[in-house]
């Protein structure tokens, strides 16, 4: 969505009327933005060598077809992981699920307890939660999460194919009729990658975790 805004804006401002002799300035960033809008931003692939060079845990996040960013693990407190980007965005996760964001255009916060059993014990029953969205603000809306599907599959990671388990969890906010399915890719009991919808006004977010012990 952000990219689209940029494209349209830049195309508009590339136009200038000679009848006004208006000056205009368009930096070369504009061309790059247009190119990325058409083709999408390339994925950031972490190779085994890249991973080995890191001395702390990190995650790669990407919204929709937008650019990838790296967030570093800042703290672990009460099994909640706080990831920070160098431009001030904070993402809090529990068992790989995003439970809070700070610094995005649209933030969210989810009561984490409802996810505990679903992700850790793979409970199939629907669990109730309180979920808040920000900008616009919708505080403590009733939500439910439910594990709806489990399947085994293989993915490529750090240059090799590995077998993982994919758990699909449905997040439902009935008051605004918002229902999305989030995928969690689990290897050795740990979520190593995930595709999650964090806010109705944001594209889905792909997050890959790289843990350094």
């Amino acid at each position, binding site marked *: 969505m952000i990219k689209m805004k940029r494209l349209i804006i830049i195309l508009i401002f590339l136009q200038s009327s*000679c009848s006004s002799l208006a000056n205009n300035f368009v930096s070369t960033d504009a061309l790059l933005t247009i190119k990325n809008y058409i083709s999408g931003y390339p994925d950031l692939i972490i190779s085994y060598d890249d991973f080995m060079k890191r001395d702390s845990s990190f995650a790669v996040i990407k919204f929709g077809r937008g650019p990838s960013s790296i967030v570093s693990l800042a703290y672990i407190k009460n099994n909640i992981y706080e990831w920070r980007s160098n431009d001030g965005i904070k993402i809090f996760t529990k068992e790989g699920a995003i439970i809070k964001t700070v610094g995005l255009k649209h933030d969210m916060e989810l009561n984490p307890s409802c996810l505990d059993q679903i992700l850790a014990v793979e409970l199939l029953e629907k669990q109730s939660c309180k979920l808040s969205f920000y900008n616009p603000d919708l505080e403590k809306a009733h939500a439910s999460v439910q594990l709806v599907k489990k399947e085994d599959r293989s993915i490529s990671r750090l240059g090799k194919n590995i077998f993982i388990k994919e758990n699909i969890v449905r997040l439902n906010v009935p008051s605004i009729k918002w229902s999305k399915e989030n995928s969690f890719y689990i290897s050795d009991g740990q979520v190593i990658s995930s595709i999650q919808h964090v806010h109705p006004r944001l594209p889905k977010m792909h997050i890959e975790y790289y843990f350094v012990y």
Partner: protein
Amino acid sequence: MLKNFFASIVLLLSNNLSSSALDYIYPYNYASFSNYGTLGLIQNPNARFHPEGTLAFSWNKQDPYLRGSILAYPFDWLEASYQYADVNNKLYSDVAAFSGSQSYKDKSFDFKIRLFRESQYFPAIALGFRDAAGTSVFAAEYIVASKFYKNIDFSAGLGWGTLSNKNLRNPLSELDISFDERSLVAGSQGGEFTFGSFFSGPMGVFGGMEIYLPYSHGSRIKFEYDGTDYNKEGFQPFPKQDSKFNIGAVYPVTENFHLRLGLIRGNTFNIGFSYTGFYGKENPVLPKKDPMTPIQNSSVIRKITSRDKTLAYKAALKYLNERKLYLQAANINDSNLEIAYSQSKFESYARATGRVARILNQIAPEYIDSFSITNLNADIGLNKINIPRDKLLNLDSASGLQSLLESTQFSEIKFVRENYEFTPASKLPKTIFKLSPVLRSQIGGPDGFYFGDLRLQASAETLFSKKISLIAQSSIGIIDTFDEMNPNPDSILPHVRTDIVQYLKESRTFQIKRLQLNYFTSLTKNIYAKGAIGYLEEMFGGLGGEILYRPLDKNYGIGAELFHVKQREYDQLFSFRDYETVTGFINLYYEMPISQILLQVKGGRFLAKDSGFNFDFSRRFKSGMRVGAFVSVTDISRAEFGEGSFDKGFYFWIPIESFFTKFSRGYTGFGLRPITRDGAAVLVHTYNLWGVTDQANSNHIIRDWSNFND
């Protein structure tokens, strides 16, 4: 859809939903555009407005019209739009040699003013004017009321001109019999307000509703009783109307981009889209992610800088320069650290000042208890800001920032480099170079609606000394559509602008747009001067100067400029044409500090040797965007001026940093004169003093004071 609609009514009646939930049930709920190009229903207007600082573009196709509109909301009670309508049932002119088979193009200016805000029980009421200053082909006036009930926005109004479908007797005739008859086009050259015909002739009624559909991504459907009298709009053959009821739908792809579709007159489909940018607010497109890099081990640095003044100067030089705040001079007098710096990264002067102060606070010797910070532009000192150091300790709260502001002193300064103990050497000359694509456009001419070329422009600025710079801009053409464009100036004035076609065509391969050598200085603390020589703009070169008196604590400025210029050859290389003149103005500026409205008046002699005044009104918004309009009155007659009757136009500029996550300086924008004429033409030399000395006004720092700690 119907089920959803009733479900929403039930939900709303239950009063259990917070207004925040409604933002998700009815997302992207800003008002939508009508086919006419302004906010409204399908064909009818309504009394809705966008937030102030909004810019928009609307496009619509409905036989026999194709219409494009640019809209601005300088206030939340004023909608102003400029439109082009392609009328496909009439030729541009009856003379085929002039315009071939091109269809008629109509330019029009509309505006709408809100009279009353909507309250719980009373509707919003607005007064609007369509095609108010044009050929009056679509001219109408209306008064309209809009009121939300649940998720339905009802609108109803009375219309005159083309909005008088019912042909009711005009009640204003009771006041004056002249309201009975509606006169047609007022001015022979167009471009003038048709005051004499406003609210005259028969009256009509219109109304309808816009229903916001729940859980439908912000979609709406619209129903209306059409107020248009199609026998008064446009040209014969008038479109046939089979039904007075129209139906339409709007689908918001995003908050900003809406698609619309409708069935009008019972026999014609319309399709359109609109793009709306809410550029007035701070960080309108992307939030900034460009915090100040903290200084490591600052306590150790402070201990070191306390030993020797030279170490303090060098530390300031290093840590400021690393953050693109370039230290130019420094002094320590007892417990005061005084520095002068220049920067080209931040549009917000408060943000730049704040970062300088916070860096100095981290590295300056402990015995320093105040900072005096001078911002330079073109080596001219524009202000001196004295900040007590102890007030920098509590900047995280609004009260701390307010306390700092109350303790901060702003004063004028005449910067003299020799008065400073530490003046780091600069490597000069220094050149900054940039490549960028540019598009030159010619819109609405008789040969075709649009001609343009895409070019690659090289821009360079060379600093020979701190006060002398050379601006060079040249470009090469990549692709153009100028072949079909023919010169047809009918102006009886010297052709200072109307030879635009020759300029565009002959410079299509290569162009030196500007080659301007500048010298800047300050004569006293608040009098600034500039000299310039070279190719000052695309059509004129010459030499001249400008002087400006601008007190720091006042909201006005008085200046003068005088240039001897000669017209450049069409190829825009090195040679000149025969025409030369002296042009000059007395310039008055007044800025309203609260509303940020700037009024500029130029009085003097224009390029075509006509004399008169140019009035320019503009408003700056929190984001830094500026929206403005101008009008000129000179001693030439409307007939001498030609089509359009007098010079006028509008523009808007948006900071480039709005579109990126990093701070940067520079603006992108759009400006338009409805028609290119020679009267009231102004020399467009770059770096005018009012802009160069923008920081020489303490209000321009105080207005963004919340950015100090950013």
